């Protein structure tokens, strides 16, 4: 919306350097492929790609705003209209699932390199959009971009080794880590690695500190509330949960459960295999549970909360202007309302203000009975039910207490995606709403 030539001139220098750096990166890769790996075909491909990147770099630096490579306006508008919490969550889940199922394909170095290049070029093209750039270039948001690429890289490193190990184990061979278990002296092998790491980190930090100034806004004022008001970025996943839950649950109960669940993890995972080497096939259940919790429920929510939530915590597409006047219709309904009023066509159960306390409690229980029954079934019936069905083996191996701790943690974790789905499909606000005790769920 606010794209103009002035902004493009500002960003042109950055983009020129950016595409040049990508070109150098691909040229180096091509050289290594040619000299060391003797894969001339791929070397030619990446040399050609590096040349194309140099064309992008020259276009960006041509001095004319019109030449800066950018996504067509139509594509940007389409992305904006398509994005929303539902598509975003469904899309990221589907993406992670595809990467997981076809991991053997994606871990191949040339495939991964193609994906990386695709992501980086898309990032560059997007940076030519003023709205996108203004959010991503906020100094405190830059680390999250780094986090995304680092996570992708290390997930690739780990999955690649896991794929190899899983194949070896299937053939009755030990994992690669076992093959490499000759002993070496710590001085020089480890001590020098550490030294190089320290120098590398220091250099990286110095460059970052010189290039990017730490933010300092206006002096604090307790009367001028910024819109949006955001917590530090690593808590934005929690802040995003506030859309679906009250603070007592999203901000206190669930985070406590996350910490507790992480601490309990080594005592719940009774699987002796996969100790000390990368493997997926040998520990699918714990792997998938952890990845769902970490990548989907923690990291993607942080990205959503940081980049796609604007004023009034409204959702904004990546190329959308953060207008404080955007209005989102909220027509969410509580379950008692749905049940008593909409379904049974009668008023909510009520009690006279001067009635004795037990009448009040009784009325609340009656009014909230649909939600209470659902939650009772979820938390009390499901665990034993699963213990004799899907989790029969787990129950037998874990024993009562460990099984109950695990299954309750799992069910609590799943309250978040379930509540999201209920919100999107039924406009459900609260399952249980007892304002008398500030207890909404």
């Amino acid at each position, binding site marked *: 919306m606010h794209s103009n030539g002035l902004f493009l001139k500002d960003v042109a220098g950055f983009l020129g350097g950016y595409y040049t750096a990508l070109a150098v990166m691909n040229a180096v890769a091509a050289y290594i492929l040619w000299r060391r790996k003797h894969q001339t075909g791929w070397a030619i491909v990446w040399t050609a790609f590096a040349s194309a990147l140099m064309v992008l770099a020259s276009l960006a630096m041509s001095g004319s705003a019109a030449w800066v490579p950018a996504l067509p306006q139509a594509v940007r508008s389409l992305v904006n209209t398509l994005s929303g919490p539902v598509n975003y969550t469904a899309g990221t889940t589907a993406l992670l699932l595809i990467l997981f199922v076809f991991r053997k394909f994606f871990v191949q170095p040339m495939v991964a390199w193609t994906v990386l290049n695709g992501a980086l070029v898309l990032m560059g093209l997007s940076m030519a959009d003023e709205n996108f750039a203004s959010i991503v270039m906020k100094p405190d948001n830059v680390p999250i971009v780094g986090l995304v690429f680092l996570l992708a890289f290390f997930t690739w490193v780990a999955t690649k080794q896991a794929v190899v190990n899983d194949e070896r184990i299937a053939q009755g061979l030990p994992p690669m880590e076992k093959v490499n278990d000759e002993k070496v002296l710590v001085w020089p092998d480890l001590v020098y690695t550490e030294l190089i790491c320290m120098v590398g980190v220091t250099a990286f930090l110095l460059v970052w500190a010189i290039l990017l100034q730490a933010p300092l806004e206006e002096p604090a004022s307790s009367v001028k509330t910024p819109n949006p008001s955001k917590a530090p970025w690593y808590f934005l996943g929690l802040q995003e949960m506030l859309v679906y839950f009250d603070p007592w649950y999203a*901000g206190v109960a669930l985070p406590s459960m996350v*910490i507790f669940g992480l601490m309990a993890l080594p005592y719940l995972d009774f699987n002796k295999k996969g*100790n000390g080497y990368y493997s997926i096939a040998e520990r699918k259940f714990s792997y998938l549970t952890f990845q769902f919790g970490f990548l989907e429920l923690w990291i993607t929510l942080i990205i959503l909360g940081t980049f796609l939530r604007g004023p009034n915590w409204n959702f904004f597409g990546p190329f959308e202007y953060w207008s404080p006047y955007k209005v989102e219709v909220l027509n969410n309904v509580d379950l008692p309302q749905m049940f008593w009023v909409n379904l049974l066509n009668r008023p909510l159960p009520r009690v006279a203000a001067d009635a004795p306390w037990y009448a009040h409690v009784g009325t609340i229980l009656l009014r909230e009975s649909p939600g209470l029954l659902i939650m009772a079934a979820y938390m009390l019936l499901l665990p034993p039910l699963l213990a004799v069905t899907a989790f029969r083996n787990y129950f037998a191996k874990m024993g009562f207490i460990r099984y109950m701790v695990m299954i309750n943690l799992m069910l609590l974790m799943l309250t978040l995606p379930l509540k999201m789905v209920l919100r999107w499909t039924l406009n459900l606000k609260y399952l249980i709403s007892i304002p008398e005790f500030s207890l909404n769920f």
Partner: protein
Amino acid sequence: MALGETIRNSQIWKSIFRHPMPLDRRNRIVVMLTNFFLHLHPVSIKKQGIALSFTWCMGGVTFFLFLVETVTGVLLMFYYRPTLEWAYNDILALRDVTSLGILRELHRWGAHAMVITTWLHMYRVFLTGSYKPPREFNWVIGVILLLLTLLLSFTGYLLPWDQLAIWAITVGSNMARASPILGYEGPGQQLLTIGGIDMITDGSDARFGLLGARFVGEETLNRFYVLHCIAIPLAVALLLAIHFWRVRKDGGISGPL
């Protein structure tokens, strides 16, 4: 080379380093055993345990970032006074007046980086299954370290005392107001009523305990400053000592049996 020889043979040098230059196998072993900093490590180690593709060096990088934060943090303390009158102006001066003014940048970006590397380290420990016996408890210590790292970053976020700072802390600490039973807007806080007197008010609830006041103000600044510069770093240092000690006692870096 002769000068180097002379220095290395001098009484001063020999009194500092308890071992000769580690150039041959014997002295490479001796150096690990007799140097205070190096004795944290074993003398020899499995090759895969130090492979970058295995550990990503992430625990080490996290520890190094903690040291960077400690050094830059101490330097920042020379320039910063945690009062409403000075906090913001001192930060402003750090940017505009102090020569070579990237101290704040180093500290802030180092802090972001430390949060990220802590997550990555946890990620690699999970993916290699290194939390499995006998390393369960070291994982638990790690989770506490993770929590403390986030709290370090959170308490530091307030100190510049600008709009970004107080509103981020306000949003974050508003959660405590909703703590079950202990927050004055939390579910069940009505239960803590003794003799008709509500015990949980905005002047006595969990958020008040965190902020030292009913809203983010001078008391909070002081409280967060002390937590950020003294209490949490000390706790982290202690836990790190245990963490590293346990890595050794649990049999070194994990590997297939």
